[in-house]
């Protein structure tokens, strides 16, 4: 069957978002005499968005399934401190400390998911409670004192991929894109050409500084994996169906409770990863780590086109959303804007993005 209207197959939404991001970048570039677009700053920008980006790409799945998780910020802070303590104070090997942290996150998410599904508690309430519990636990765990791990821990947040390895990975990816470009015959092939340019440019710019930052690599790998999960597995499509019409999904034989418990579990595990990256990037686990990050993640997902009603959203969109938010922080920081402007502008952009999206959808 041929889609008769080729205009429909062009991802207007995604293009609009990329356009908006470019406008923001150009404005900041002018405002900072080009400093904003320097490789050094772009590298910093990417590292700044890593933690929010990891949380946002998981949050998309949670929201797509018609749920919400307010606990992830506090959980990220708590798990980041847990990893540091296990490694520093208890002398666990690094790998084991990391694995235990991610598992702990999965377990916390699992428990919250159970409360939501089996006891039928609203996810807003369960995870709001979770947020408070994790905030308190973080304070109790650190006793208000920052815990600073040694360099091999910090590498997760601060090291760079050797430039040669970076190019190697990029070439592999590029080869894949070229193969898909020639395999695909329809208009969609240009998507692969675009990705080719993007990947090559990305590596070129970051290698012009010190290389691809490890947290950014981690973010991209996770985003890629989650995107495949969302788009190309039955589990992912079921999440969309559950968020789109829970009754219809149930009547189609989908085990809703199992799916939802798993999505909260996944979110918890991602909070574990985000916590490790956060501690490593900042250089220490502090008692207010992760504060408000759940809202940044939700905002990034929503700016990226995720509908809070469920059933609609994309992982790559959330990554773009996180990039928009990080760009605002970074750019305003560079321009020495007074700090109070940052949340005001971010809030306005959030409302504007959703408003534009709604207007665009009404028209079609």
């Amino acid at each position, binding site marked *: *069957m*041929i*889609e*008769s*209207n080729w205009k*429909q*197959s062009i991802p207007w939404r995604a293009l609009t978002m990329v356009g908006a991001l470019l406008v923001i970048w150009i404005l900041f570039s002018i405002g900072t005499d080009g400093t904003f677009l320097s490789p050094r700053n772009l590298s910093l920008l990417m590292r700044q968005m890593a933690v929010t980006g990891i949380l946002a790409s998981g949050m998309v799945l949670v929201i797509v399934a018609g749920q919400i998780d307010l606990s992830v910020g506090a959980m990220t802070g708590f798990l980041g401190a847990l990893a540091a303590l296990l490694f520093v104070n208890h002398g666990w090997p690094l790998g084991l400390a990391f694995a235990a942290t991610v598992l702990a996150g999965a377990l916390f998410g699992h428990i919250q998911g159970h409360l939501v599904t089996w006891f039928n508690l609203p996810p807003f309430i369960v995870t709001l409670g979770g947020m408070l519990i994790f905030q308190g636990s973080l304070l109790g765990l650190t006793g208000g004192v920052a815990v600073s791990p040694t360099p091999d821990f910090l590498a997760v947040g601060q090291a760079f991929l050797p430039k040669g390895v970076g190019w190697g990975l990029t070439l592999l990816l590029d080869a894949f894109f070229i193969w898909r470009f020639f395999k695909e015959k329809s208009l969609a092939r240009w998507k692969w050409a675009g990705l080719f340019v993007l990947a090559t440019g990305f590596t070129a710019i970051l290698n012009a500084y010190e290389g691809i930052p490890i947290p950014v690599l981690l973010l991209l790998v996770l985003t890629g994996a989650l995107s*495949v999960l969302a*788009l*190309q*597995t*039955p589990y992912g*499509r*079921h999440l*969309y*169906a559950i968020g*789109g*019409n829970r*009754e*219809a*999904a*149930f*009547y*189609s*034989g*989908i*085990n809703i409770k199992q799916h939802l418990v798993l999505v909260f579990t996944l979110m918890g595990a991602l909070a574990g990863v985000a916590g490790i990256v956060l501690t490593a990037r900042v250089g220490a686990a502090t008692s207010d780590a992760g504060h408000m990050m759940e809202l940044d993640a939700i905002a990034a997902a929503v700016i990226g086109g995720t509908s809070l009603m469920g*059933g*609609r959203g994309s992982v790559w969109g959330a990554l773009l959303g996180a990039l928009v938010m990080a760009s605002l922080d970074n750019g305003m920081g560079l321009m020495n804007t007074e700090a109070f402007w940052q949340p005001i502008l971010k809030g306005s952009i959030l409302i504007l993005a959703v408003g534009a999206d709604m207007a665009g959808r009404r028209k079609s």
Partner: protein
Amino acid sequence: MALLELKNITKDFPGVRALDGVSFDLNPGEIHALCGENGAGKSTLIKILCGYHPAGSYGGEMFLSGQKVFFKTLQDSEKAGLALIAQELALVPEFSVIENMSLGQEPSHFGLLQKDQAEQNCRRALEKVGLSVDPHTQVKDLGVGQQQMVEIAKALSKDARLLVLDEPTAALTESDSKRLLDLLSQLRQKGVSVVYISHRLEEVARIADRVTVLRDGKSVSTGPISQMPKDKIIADMVGREVKTFYPRPPAREGEILLSVKNLSFENPQVPGRKILDGVSFEVKAGEILGLGGLMGSGRTALLSALFGVARGKVTGTIEMEGSTLPPFNHPTQAIRQKIALVSEDRKRYGLVLESTVRENLVLAVLSKLTRKGLLDGEAIDLSCEKEVLDLRIKTRGLSTLANQLSGGNQQKVVLGKWFLTSPKILLLDEPTRGIDVGAKAEIYELLGRLTAEGMAIVMASSDLPELLGLSHRILVLNQGKAAGLFDEHSATAEKIMEAATAAAGKAKAS
């Protein structure tokens, strides 16, 4: 002079001309039926009439009592005395009848609600429509028929002199429908005019003074009911003669595929009140078993219980292929046993409306269409294209959103979704509700093909001609009990209604 006159109305949507020079008029105290398949332009016409499509967005003119009117909003038309009773009722379920009735026109004094006044107004309005319910009842506790009466009462309380009813009986039982029609006749005598839209031509014949048939955005014929017999209306609607409207497939003596014994379940909210009470029956391969009964008699409950979606603990046994099973408590179990349910409310239980046709079609079989854990795009498209062709689903493509399809095609998507699970037993709950005549005929024909292939079908329907015309046997339910079983030769509308309405315990199987 005509109360309402629409002249030469033309309305374009991007790429489609929905209405093409339609004229329509309505006299005081007249019931004028508007017939046509889904997509013929009926909805567009009434949306123009009510100001939903504002003046200026369409071509042509509208006159009310000889005066040219320009409705920009629903409020404009309401002020002029028009009231639309839509398919989806516009009541707040959690509000009482009084609150609903006064919503938007609350009597107040210095900004404070005058509750006594509101109650009086409400009682007066209820009296007008002859509805005797406690006005303090929450609307969600009323039956659909009663809710509709409340809507009409609300319209009348706003001094409406022109009612537009869009498929008012689609969700009503026979007796509620009859009451509604009686009410409309009474209102007509009091000078109220009605535009009546319905797929049920028996009703149209009974109540309408005049009929106008729309097809493809054009007015095909209009005339007094005496000159518009049912056959002519149908022929005009579909543009061709519909010969055998209910093509009952020949009866086949197949093996028994499903045998249900003593199925019961209680209302979880009201312990002791049985929604299903010891129902037993069997279905053979190649057979259509009809389920008759009034609204609330347990038809939907029975199908839900068989499919594992009943909201309560089901007891009894289900025998399939020689093994005896307890009732299912999750649809997965039913699907594994090759049972499929097409529910009565496709928008709520059948479709993910904001998803594509493709996603909806494969929703129940996604886990099977994978390669190494990832979805197999080609296999998915192949499956979808097969169903689109087999069922003649009219869609621009697989990526079209489900909510952009007409009701008939949405229903076909739901059917397609289940056929992909290759079911042996198909449970249908009101399969043709709100679907146009053409799509109905296609679905009937499809049922014939399915039974010829040996599928067993259990079909609940409120549409008696449909039930009688298609079923090989009809099981009538009455207050959760089996109240009669008729074969195709002995079943008549009268016998079914008698069994369905008899006081509990008196009905016998024949």
